[in-house]
């Protein structure tokens, strides 16, 4: 270890991995519906796609979790994106391809992909 900068670099690199354990981890949450209806409709590959896409872009401060059935089974797979101080956005009938686009446009560029949202489907 020759400098503080080197230490800082290790810190930043590792922070992504541990952010979910920090008390104040105020990040974006991706919540995938993983009840029986969700899994039957293909939620598992959707969740994997989110995880892969986030990893590829090395995004920190984003967590992926699951939720149960919210009652709109016909619209599964359902994914909610919850960002601090922003309204929750609910995407429906998700696919792995759509997941990649949501990461790129919504999570990275903060542009909601309106056509996939529950409002557009109803």
């Amino acid at each position: 270890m020759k400098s503080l900068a080197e230490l800082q670099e290790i810190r930043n690199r590792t922070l992504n991995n541990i952010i979910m354990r920090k008390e104040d981890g105020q990040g974006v949450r991706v919540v995938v519906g993983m009840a029986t209806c969700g899994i039957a409709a293909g939620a598992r590959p959707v969740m994997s796609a989110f995880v892969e896409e986030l990893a590829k872009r090395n995004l920190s401060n984003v967590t992926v979790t699951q939720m149960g059935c919210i009652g709109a089974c016909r619209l599964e797979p359902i994914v909610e994106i919850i960002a601090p101080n922003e309204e929750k956005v609910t995407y429906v009938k998700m696919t792995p391809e759509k997941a990649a686009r949501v990461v790129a446009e919504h999570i990275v560029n903060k542009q909601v992909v309106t056509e996939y949202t529950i409002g557009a489907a109803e």
Partner: protein
Amino acid sequence: MDMVRAHVLCCGGTGCTSSGCEAIIKEMETQLAANGLEKEIKVIKTGCFGLCALGPVMIVYPEGCFYSRVQAEDVKEIVEEHLLKGRIVKRLLYKETIEEDKIKSLNEVDFYKKQKRIALRNCGVIDPENIDEYIAFDGYKALGKCLTELSPTDVIEEIKKSGLRGRGGGGFPTGLKWQFAAASQNEKKYVCCNADEGDPGAFMDRSILEGDPHAVIEAMAIAGYAIGADQGYVYIRAEYPIAVKRLQIAIDQAKEYGLLGKGIFGTDFNFDLEIRLGAGAFVCGEETALMTSIEGKRGEPRPRPPFPAVKGLWEKPTILNNVETYANIPQIINNGADWFGSMGTEKSKGTKVFALGGKINNTGLVEIPMGTTLREIVEEIGGGIPNGKKFKAAQTGGPSGGCIPAHLMDTPIDYDSLIAIGSMMGSGGLIVMDEDNCMVDIAKFFLEFTVDESCGKCTPCRIGTRRLLELLTKITEGKGTMEDIDKMEELCYSIKESSLCGLGQTAPNPVLSTLRYFRDEYEAHVRDKVCPAGVCKALSKYMIDPEKCKGCSLCARQCPVGAISGEVRSPFVIAQDKCIKCGACMSGCKFGAIYKK
């Protein structure tokens, strides 16, 4: 790089290891693989979470779910329900965290609410075998700051200003100790860490080394910089294999990163660290005996002065601090002396870790701000006494300490208040006793320990403690006289005044403090020949209540010495001269007719 969406933290401390966490971790890995989740979910073995009574414990992030008493059979359900489908397995949650239909954060439950984790900050949060995680939680930042921004004098001033006092028992101001060693002129100096932890019932230092070994390494390097030493030793007992292993891994990683070794952070500061194993003698926790032991000689104390800051290890200026003392140092440097000084009482700053044990619901490890009362620790954090029994006393300071009786439960826990009531902080064992504990027996227990552990170098300790134990034994056998009590008290003071080291100087404390608060119990043993708590065998009697006895003869058949006789269908009697007080009759009686007096 793979993104990990969930972390499963399993406690791998000694407590949970003995309740079977290894098998659970293995099963977790098998189940994750079976569900194709091994890349998305990471299993991390951490140090102690503190709630050892509920082990094995597990926390799942990002939800922060706290699962307790997890068995290998439960793991499949956790993986399939929670980790795959996101349905939390309610039946395994720590019940204190369940509230209506949401889960409370662990910080809100009674056990953690009043705690303040500084020394234990990373325990149960990071993977102790991964230096990167320590660094991500601001590790080695304090060392970097010291080496690049502060002079050795600045560091010492900061520690002095923080008010930190030694957590190994004595409570000596840490900054002052460093200042003395810094002032000693010598081309070679040493930094030592006391991880001997000999108090029966104490496991704070072990848990810190198991859960956050880098904190101690970082602090020792800071100490080395402050006093001008380039070599450190951690003296740790061989009975702590997990702690030794993790500390060695941590030292190796720190060396690999150049955080130990030559030219740390590009400065001209060099520091190296080695482990020295102790064989587990209590006296080797005493500072001069510890250093003698590191030198490879028989661990015996020597008179002071000269103090170690002047002539310590290999006759060179040396500082010795306790594990927990060191664990506070990086936090003080990072957050400032004022931050640290804002916690605790006027003369005892910061927090103290206690190992809660004995008759208490939440046995485990707690870290509380100094000044918290014993009542808060026992009733709120500790969850009270099991089986509806009454609190009788708490023992702090182990074999060097004393008892705190019920009427002093509102005493704030700090160095000076504890001394004032005849106990001491000690290294942090806190054993709770209820009405079923006999205080004479407790004093005898600790005396047996010191008699065993006395190194024998000085007469007052070697022979004095043995005589004291003989008097105590005489009293518990109902053969004591009132003069014996006075004689005992006198002997206590002679041992205290004339022993060579702290072991003998404090050995009579358990006797003196129980005499102070429970003299009536001693007198009951002597004058009335009864043990009020019913513990001392020679003084207790098993009796059969003739009203309740149905004359079934079961007790007579169970008695191993044939002490019970009677006619079937009429009350039986116990022949007291034959009875060996094993209690087999009482536990066998179906009518509750046998009682102990």
